[in-house]
Structure formats: structure tokens, C-alpha cells
């Protein structure tokens, strides 16, 4: 239609290249920190005997939910071990946990900021929409450019994709705290911090935990995608299954992801219900 084509592609590439050079130290430092966390987690997981680690996970499940899910966890984890996927399972767990730690560290303050300022919310909303709707594969490209291949870009891509629901629901939860509770906090002379810690956050907790749950689920959904840029784990096994058109292999690894997802989902949902019982009348 026109001879002229908007050089959007060039702009983005230039911008990313520019950042790559200018912020190299920052990115390197970040990459080192993230890989240190992953490494520590993974070493920790591998240092513990398989059965002990399983027992710890199952006890945690039992404490948070009930015997049904604990039984499911026992059978599921034993199955993963039995089909030889224990090691990639641990890699995936380390990846998921690291990404989730990062999401919480960044997501909570952002959500609180969005809740405390309408301007901040107005600015964040389109950014969050963008982050969540952009196809997840797209994040792999800048992630590689900034962090190379391996676990770290996997964590970063996962972080970008799974951050929005937590920010959104922290914001929502805090904004939904009844106005008279806020007035009560103010009337008794609370500082902003006291109001946040003693009133807003605890009352918003069920919604915050729902956000945590959603972001964990999105986090898990990135496992396979992240394996395309060299993040080891169950995703790598799925990828191999695809490359060899080996349905059995792909299915086994997929099943292991599902088992992990069910355990994490039910656990966080149970945490939410616990607080909800108390907070909602």
C-alpha cells in the first residue's frame, strides 16, 4: 500500500542492543544472582536423599491441605522417580521456585503501589496487559540476548509472563478492603506502614493468595517454553519427545509437570481458603 514501512523492528532491535551494552554490568550481576539462587536450590535438593525430600514435600502438603492430596503427592512423586524423571523434576522445581521468589519480591510492592496510587495503577495496567497477552515465546528472544542460554533467561521469561496476575490481585485485594476499616486505622492514628501491615494486607490476604496461585500456574506453563532456550528440566524431556516424535517420552514428562502443578495449585488454594475463612464473615 505504501512504499514506506515503519521501521518498528529496527527500533526495537536498536533499543535492546543499546540496553545490552549500556546495562551490561547490571544484567551480568542479575544473571549471577539468579543462577546462584537456582544453583543453591538445586544443590540443596540433590544433596538430600530422594526419600527424605519426598517426605518433606508430602508433610508440607499434609500440613497445608489434607491426607487426600498428601496421598496423591506420595504416589505422584514415586511415579516420577520410578520413570527416571526425578533429576529433571528437581531442575524444574528449582526453576519454578526461583522465578516465583522473584515474582513475589517484585509483584508485592508493585501491587501495593498500584493500590495506593491511581496514577500508578493507570500506568501499570496497560503494561501488565501487554506482558500477559504478548505470546510467551516472544520473551525468549530478548531473554537470550541479555542473558544467553540456560536457566537464567528461562527464569526471566517466566518472570515476565507470570508476574501480572500477582500484581493485579494484590492491587485488587487492597483496594477492596472496606473503607470503614481504613477509616478506623486512620482514626486510631496509624501510620501508612501500620495501616498496610496491620489492616490492608491481612484483610486482602485471600485475594493476594489467589494472585499467588494464578502466577504459580502461569509460571509452570512456561516450563516447557523455557526449555527451548536451554532451561533444563521436565521441559527438556517434553522437547525431546517432540523432536523424536516419541509420544511416550513426551507424555511421561508432561505428566510429571501436571503432578507438580496439581500439588502446587491445591497447596496455595488451601492457604487461601484458610485465611479466607477468617477474613470473610
Amino acid at each position, binding site marked *: 500500500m505504501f512504499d514506506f514501512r515503519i521501521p518498528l523492528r529496527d527500533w526495537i532491535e536498536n533499543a535492546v542492543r543499546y540496553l545490552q551494552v549500556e546495562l551490561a554490568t547490571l544484567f551480568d550481576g542479575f544473571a549471577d544472582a539468579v543462577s546462584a539462587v537456582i544453583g543453591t536450590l538445586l544443590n540443596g535438593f540433590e544433596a538430600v536423599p530422594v526419600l527424605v525430600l519426598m517426605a518433606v514435600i508430602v508433610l508440607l502438603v499434609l500440613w497445608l491441605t489434607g491426607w487426600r492430596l498428601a496421598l496423591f503427592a506420595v504416589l505422584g512423586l514415586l511415579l516420577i522417580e520410578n520413570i527416571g524423571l526425578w533429576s529433571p523434576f528437581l531442575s524444574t522445581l528449582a526453576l519454578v521456585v526461583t522465578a516465583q521468589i522473584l515474582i513475589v519480591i517484585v509483584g508485592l510492592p508493585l501491587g501495593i503501589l498500584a493500590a495506593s496510587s491511581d496514577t500508578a495503577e493507570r500506568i501499570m495496567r496497560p503494561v501488565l496487559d501487554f506482558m500477559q497477552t504478548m505470546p510467551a515465546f516472544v520473551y525468549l528472544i530478548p531473554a537470550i540476548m541479555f542473558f544467553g542460554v540456560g536457566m537464567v533467561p528461562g527464569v526471566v521469561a517466566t518472570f515476565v509472563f507470570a508476574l501480572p496476575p500477582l500484581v493485579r490481585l494484590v492491587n485488587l485485594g487492597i483496594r477492596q478492603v472496606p473503607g470503614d476499616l481504613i477509616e478506623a486505622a486512620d482514626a486510631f492514628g496509624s501510620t501508612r506502614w501500620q495501616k498496610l501491615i496491620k489492616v490492608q494486607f*491481612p484483610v486482602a490476604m485471600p485475594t493476594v493468595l489467589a494472585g499467588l496461585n494464578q502466577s504459580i500456574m502461569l509460571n509452570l506453563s512456561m516450563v516447557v517454553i523455557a526449555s527451548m532456550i536451554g532451561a533444563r528440566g521436565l521441559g527438556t524431556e517434553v522437547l525431546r519427545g517432540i523432536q523424536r516424535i516419541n509420544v511416550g517420552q513426551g507424555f511421561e514428562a508432561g505428566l510429571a509437570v501436571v503432578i507438580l502443578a496439581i500439588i502446587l495449585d491445591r497447596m496455595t488454594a488451601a492457604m487461601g481458603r484458610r485465611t479466607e475463612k477468617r477474613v470473610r*464473615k
Partner: protein
Amino acid sequence: MSSTAQAESGRQCPTSVVPNVTTESSPQSAPAPERPVKLATRNLSKVFGPRPERALEILRQGGSKADAQKVGAAVGVYDANLQIREGETFVLMGLSGSGKSTLLRMFNRLHEPTAGQVLVDDLDITRLSRRELLEVRREKFSGMVFQQFAILPHRTVVDNVAYGLEVQGVNAAERQRRAREATALVGLEGWEEYYPSELSGGMQQRVGLARALAVDADILLMDEAFSALDPLIRREMQDELVELQARVNKTIVFVTHDLDEALKLGDRIAIMKDARVVQVGTAEEILTHPADDYVEAFVEGVDRASVLTASNIMQPVKETAFLRDGPNTVRTKMRRHGLSGIIVTDSERKVQGYITSEAVRAQIEDQAADRERLDRARVVPATTVGLQTPLQDIIGIASEASVPIGVVDPAGRLRGVVVKGAILAALVRPGNTDQNAGAAGAVRGEAANV
């Protein structure tokens, strides 16, 4: 402000039971010292929406709230000038939207005033920085009590009550002690470790009240505090507030839309309409001399004499005599409380009669009389009414009886006393007294307990 003093003195000594009838019936003669102003407002206004200055200008030139609305401004309060005295229960009354809650919220700057001053102990708090304001909220105000209770669902009763202290940085042990004290004060002993969702509405509001009392600062703000409660609980809470106030003696600002509640609780009442304070005065002043047609219309609907019952206006019994008391014991009891007569009951508090100080003295002076017991013959029949006897019936009885009227429950036990002053205070207008006195001859079933 002699009538203010009158209401205050009446509230101050609610326990002057079986009183000296002559002083009680002419309360105007009692000069009460003016107490210092605790909380005052000067030309205080609040306008919501854009360009509040323009709205204020319209009002200044005599425009109404509706005129201001045309420029997009919602006037909450306009030009409020109030002087609330220490230890006073001051009621802000008006229909919804009249601005009473907005005015209340400007006292601690939950709403920022658009213009004017709020003086707390002569300190203009509208000028304070945020940090200084926090100090004032902590030290001068006992927080606030809200219509929907506003207690924290994730905290136990005692932790809710401790909230204000926690914010102030009071240490944990001290906090627990004071919170438990306040919890007991509102009658929630034993419920400390429960969660709000396990409590009824009335109990939740007690938690709200205890939370405020635990702070123990001078000024207590209450926003429609009892409006969400069902009528029986509500009346009970009103009674308890009156009783509590006699003990803790706070400066209470109480917002309500209910005239009966205002009359019952308020030493003075400010009536608000369309963002303005239209009248300030004691219950009597407002009922007998309404400032304008609006107040008159507001007050007219209330037939005090048929609405109120003995249980509403009775006061606690301070002292009773027993038949087995010696006359000297009885005289000591009467002297201690300055009584000119005393109701005689048995050990189950069932009313046996009434004896005057003259009769007691006569028995003491009579050498032949019994030293160990009251002489039955000197005890005259007591006048009593039931808890639910309407005020209009009590008026008739009171006009004939020269002695205080005992209030008894269905089992005949003495629960309180009605004094003439209380009847007068409870009435709407002097006119109604005559009108109802005729119909008051018929005494209700359980009333004539001789």
C-alpha cells in the same frame, strides 16, 4: 447557658436515687460550673468536588446547597460553629445527607476541612502536619466507633481491642492488660480469644467500643454507632453507654439520625439540615423551642410520653432499707446518700414499702420502739410501676405520689427508681403533660404493688 448546666448536672449524678424531690423538680436553681471547651469548630466547611472555593462563595452570598450543586460541588458541611465541653455527650443529629458524619470526620481530619478551623484543646489541628496530626489522633482521640463496627476480621477480640495501643507502640504486656480491662468494661469477659465472625452484631459493636475505650484518650467519636443494631440490643447499648459515660467521663461526640437516641444520650444536641447546623441546645430547649419549622417538624413526630417506658427513664437504685435493719442503720444509709426517704425491700429485693426520714427519726426517738427492726407501722406503701409502664401512665402516678416511684420487674423485684426530674426531662413539651395526665389514672396491672 443555664439549661446546659442543668442537663449536665442531671447526667453527672444519675445515681441520686430516691432524691430530695424539691431540688430535683427545680433543677434550674443548681448552678453548675462551666466546664472548659474541649473541641470547637470555627466556620468549618467541607465541600466535595472541583472548585470548592466557588461553592463556598455561593453559600456565603446566601445560596443554598442546591445552588452550589449546580457548579458541580457537593457541600458536606457549611459554616459549623460548635463548642463541645469536656465530659459532655454531644449529639450531631440530622437526616442522611445532612452532613453530620462529614462534620464528625473533620474533627480528626479523616475528612480535610475546606475552610475553617477545628480546635482541640485550643489547638488548631487544621494547621498540623501529617506527623503532628497522627500524634493528636493518638493522644486526644479515642479513635472512633463506626456504624458497621469496622473491626478487623483477622484478629481476635482482644487483639482488636488492643489495636489503638499497638499503633501507639505500647508494649505487649501493658497492651494486653489494658485491652483485657476494656474488654471487661464492655461486658465481653470470656470472649477475648474469639474472632469477630463468631460474635453477634451487638457484641461486635462492643468490641468497637472497647477498642476506643482501651486507648483512654479524652474524646470519643461515635458515628451512628448503634444504628446497625436491632432495636432491643440498641436500647441496651444506649443504656450501657450512659452508664459507662458516668464512669469514664469522656467527651463524646455521637452522630445519629434517630431523635429518640439523641434525646436519650445527648447532654446537648446539634441539629443539622442541608449541611448547616440549624440548632444547638439541650433536649428540652430543642423540644420546647425549636429554632425553625424544620426542627419543629422533626421533633413533632415524637410523642415522648407514649414511646418511653419506665425502663427508659429509671435510674439505678443506690440504696434500699430492709425490714430487719435497725432504725439507726437506716438513718445512716439515708444520710450517706442524702435521701429524704428510702424504699424498703426484703432480701430478694421485693418491695415492701417506703419510709421517710421523719418516720425513722420518730422510731429512734420513741423509747418503746424496736431497736433491731424497722417498725412495720411506720413503713408506708411504696408506689411502684412495671418496667414496661408507659411514661404517660407514670405521669399520672407521679403527680399524685409524693414519694419516688419504684420500678419493679414482673417478679416484683426492685430494678430502678423514677424521679420526677427524669420524667420532666423525658417529656417533649409541657403541653403534653396536661394532655396525658388525664389518661394516666388507669394504672397498669402490676403497677400498684403496696
